[in-house]
């Protein structure tokens, strides 16, 4: 499955949940396919989508909060998996689109071909962690992990396919803040 196909499967399943996106390919692909006001596009600060998502989940316990992360981001902030596991917000679903490379900078390899991030998350203390390799399996895994009390982790293995001509997020950072805050108020 290509990264774009994973997004095509995943995005229609999301309703009004706040979604925090990791920088690079994750932001740009999601923005290009389906822009939403409840999307927080983190265009810089690599590694922090997970801690931002944790903060939102802790302060909005009545909303299911979704993080769409990348393997490079998760590897940069492995310690945040421990923070999420220790805090254990039931309303948090951490999704990782794992293409095993830093795709938006030219597909340099990461380490996730050797390190199974869903196992790291489970060992850290996430309640449930699933790994999906076929696009037909995304829907069932997503629905299951969204319904079970979290924090839960969904790793989706994909092949790199990013088209660099995919535009960047066109909203200004300030606009992203304002509309996200209004949408999840």
């Amino acid at each position: 499955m290509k990264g774009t196909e994973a997004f095509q499967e995943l995005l229609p399943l999301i309703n009004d949940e706040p979604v925090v996106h990791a920088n690079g390919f994750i932001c740009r692909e999601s923005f290009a396919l389906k822009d939403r006001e409840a999307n927080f596009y983190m265009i810089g600060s690599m590694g922090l989508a997970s801690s931002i998502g944790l903060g939102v989940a802790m302060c909005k316990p009545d909303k299911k909060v979704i993080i769409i992360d990348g393997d490079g981001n998760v590897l940069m902030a492995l310690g945040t998996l421990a923070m999420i596991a220790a805090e254990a917000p039931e309303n948090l679903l951490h999704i990782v689109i794992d293409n095993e490379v830093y795709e938006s900078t030219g597909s340099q390899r990461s380490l996730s071909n050797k390190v199974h991030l869903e196992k790291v998350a489970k060992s850290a203390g996430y309640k449930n962690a699933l790994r999906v390799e076929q696009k037909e399996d995304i829907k069932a895994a997503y629905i299951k992990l969204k319904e079970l009390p979290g924090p839960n982790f969904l790793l989706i293995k994909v092949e790199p396919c990013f088209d660099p001509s995919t535009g960047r997020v066109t909203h200004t950072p300030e606009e992203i803040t304002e509309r996200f805050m209004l949408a999840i108020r």
Partner: protein
Amino acid sequence: MSSLTSQSFIKRLVQEEYKFFTGVPCSLLSGLIYELESQDEVRYIPAVREDAAVGLCTGAYLAGTMPVLLMQNSGLGYSLNAFTSLNLIYKIPMLVIMSWRGKDGKDAPEHIIMGDIDKQLLKTAGMEYSLLSEENCEEVLKKAKQKITEEKLPYTLIVEKGLFDERH
């Protein structure tokens, strides 16, 4: 505020509607963190790194809760990219309480350079700060609140050794 203690300062922060506390410890802030951990109406969330604490504060603010980050000045290095590529451009504020290790070159070697340049780094990044003291506490809290609510920018209060009690 009559006399500034860890207890009175945390109480003032809570009165000012700061409700979310996280950070990475420093001995100079140990009294404050002890206070946060022992009070019922506030919570302190231990962070693994200062930049992760910035992320956590960012999420809290986006969800409508005013956050406070406590860290040693050594954490400024780790968190500078988070401030410049996230908070300063997205206008996501927080109150930063930063201890000043390495003041006047009198400290362990690892603190000397950061103790010398931390204020310049904040200034260069466009992040305002005040050196907190018993005398200026009310004034700088007001200034911080204004910066945070009106300009939506982080504001840093610098804590010198001896200002608050230490708990080892």
